[in-house]
C-alpha cells in the first residue's frame, strides 16, 4: 500500500534519538547505548509493524546503534592512529551535535521568515501568496513519536491476537479518513482512544495512519498529552471540509 505520508516528513531517526535522550535526561556525551538502542528499537519495530512508509532510514540507524553497542562490549578499546582510544559512540554523538545545530538554525531562520513576512511589498495582491508556500504545515503538536506511544498503549489493550495481520480490503485509509472527518465534524475534537475503543488492531492501525495523513495535509490538528497516553484530533482552524 502506498501512503502519501512518509514518516520522515514528520520526524527522522535523529529526531527520535534526540527525543529519547531528552526524555531520559541523558548527557549527550555519555549515552547509555544499550538502553537507548532498546528504546529506539521498540519504536522502529512498531513503525515497521504498522507499515508506515519511510522506515528505511530508521532501520539504518538501528543497525548503527546495534553495531556501536557491540563494539562497546569489545574487551580492548579500538584506537586511532595516535593510539588514543576511540569511543564507538563518537560518530553518533557527532551526528547528533551537528543535527542539533542545524535544527536550531532552521528554527532561527523560520522566525526570520515569519518576521519578514510581516512586511508587505508592493503588488502583493497580484502575486498569489500560495504559490510561494504551497505546502500546509503538518499539524502535529509535539512529535509523531508521542502519537506512536499512544498507538502502542492502545494496541496493547486491543482485544485481539498480538500479531497485526494486514488484510488490505478491510478498511482503507480513505475510509478511515472519512470516519475521522465525520467524527470531528460532529464534535470538533475527539480523542484517538475513544475513536478506536473496542475495535480490532487492524482498525486501530489504519485509523492511526489516516489521522497522520490528515494531519499531514493540514486537515486536522493532532495534539498529544505530555504523558503520551492519548491524543486528540481536532478540526484545523479555518479548515473547510470538502466532503
Amino acid at each position, binding site marked *: 500500500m502506498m501512503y502519501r505520508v512518509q514518516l520522515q516528513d514528520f520526524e527522522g531517526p535523529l529526531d527520535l534519538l534526540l527525543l529519547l535522550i531528552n526524555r531520559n*535526561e541523558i548527557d549527550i556525551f*555519555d549515552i547509555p547505548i544499550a538502553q537507548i538502542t532498546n528504546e529506539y528499537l521498540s519504536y522502529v519495530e512498531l513503525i515497521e509493524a504498522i507499515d508506515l512508509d519511510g522506515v528505511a532510514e530508521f532501520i539504518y540507524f538501528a543497525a548503527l546503534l546495534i553495531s556501536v553497542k557491540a563494539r562497546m562490549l569489545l574487551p580492548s578499546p579500538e584506537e586511532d592512529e595516535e593510539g588514543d582510544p576511540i569511543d564507538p*559512540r563518537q560518530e553518533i554523538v557527532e551526528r547528533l551535535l551537528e543535527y542539533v545545530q542545524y535544527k536550531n538554525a532552521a528554527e532561527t531562520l523560520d522566525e526570520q521568515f515569519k518576521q519578514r513576512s510581516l512586511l*508587505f511589498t508592493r503588488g502583493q495582491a497580484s502575486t498569489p501568496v500560495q504559490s510561494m*508556500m504551497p505546502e500546509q504545515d*503538518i499539524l502535529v503538536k509535539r512529535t509523531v513519536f508521542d502519537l506512536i506511544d499512544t498507538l502502542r498503549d492502545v494496541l496493547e489493550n486491543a482485544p485481539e491476537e498480538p500479531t497485526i495481520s494486514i488484510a488490505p480490503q478491510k478498511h482503507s485509509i480513505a475510509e478511515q479518513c472519512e470516519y475521522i472527518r465525520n467524527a470531528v465534524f460532529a464534535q470538533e475534537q475527539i480523542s484517538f482512544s475513544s475513536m478506536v475503543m473496542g475495535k480490532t488492531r487492524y482498525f486501530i492501525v489504519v485509523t492511526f495512519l489516516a489521522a497522520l495523513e490528515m494531519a499531514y495535509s493540514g486537515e486536522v490538528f493532532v495534539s498529544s498529552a505530555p504523558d503520551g497516553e492519548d491524543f486528540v484530533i481536532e478540526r484545523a482552524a479555518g479548515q473547510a471540509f470538502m466532503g
Partner: protein
Amino acid sequence: MKQERFDNSVTLQMVLEALAFATDVPVSAKEVCRVYAEVVGEASQPSEAAIDEAFRELNDSYEIGGHTMRIQYWAGGLRMTTTESVAPFLEAFFRRERRRHLTKPLMETLAIVAYKQPATKAEIDAVRGVDSGYALRKLLELNLLAIFGRADIIGRPMLYATTERFLEEFGLKNLDELPNLRQAEELLGDAAFNEERTRLLMAKGLDMGDGDPPSATSESKSKS
C-alpha cells in the same frame, strides 16, 4: 518613450524613494546611482555613501511623519515595504489566513544549504539522517535554492546554493547577515563544554556506557 526634461528639484533621495517604490526587485545602490547620473548628466554620479545617507534619511522621515513605509536593504538592494504595525490590516485585506510557512523538512534542508553552501545532496542527507530529495526539488521550485554547479568529486554531484530570492524572502542583505550558527554545546545548555572535554568524556565513557543507570548520566550532566 519621449524623453522628458528632468525636473531640477528632483534629489537623489527622491530618485531612491521612487525606485524602491516602483520596482518589484531590490535595486542596488549602484543601479540607483547610474540611473540618477544617466538622467541628470554624467558629471553628477553620486557616491554609494550618498545613497546610504539618503536611505537612512528616508526611513527617518517616514518614521517621523507617521508613515507606514520603510525602505529595506535586502539581497544587496533597496526595496520599499510596509511596517510590521500594519501587517494585521494587510493580512485581513488579502485574507491571508495562514502565514507563509515552510515545512520542517524544507526549513531544515534550507538551513543546511544556507550555512554549508555550496552543498551536495549527500552532505545534506548526512546531516538530516533522511533523504532530502523531495525537499531539494521543492526548494528549487520555490526558487529559494539553485544549482550552483557540480562538485569536483566522484560522480560529480550537483551543488546547491541559496538564491537572491532566498535573501529577499528572509530579509537578509547578504549571506554574511545569516544569524550565527550556534554551537551545539551552547544549545544543549552546556557552556563549559569544549572539544577537549568531549575527548576526555569519550575516553572515560568507554568503561561505562552499557546500560548504565540514570544516576551516572545525571551525575556526569551535573558536572558539565
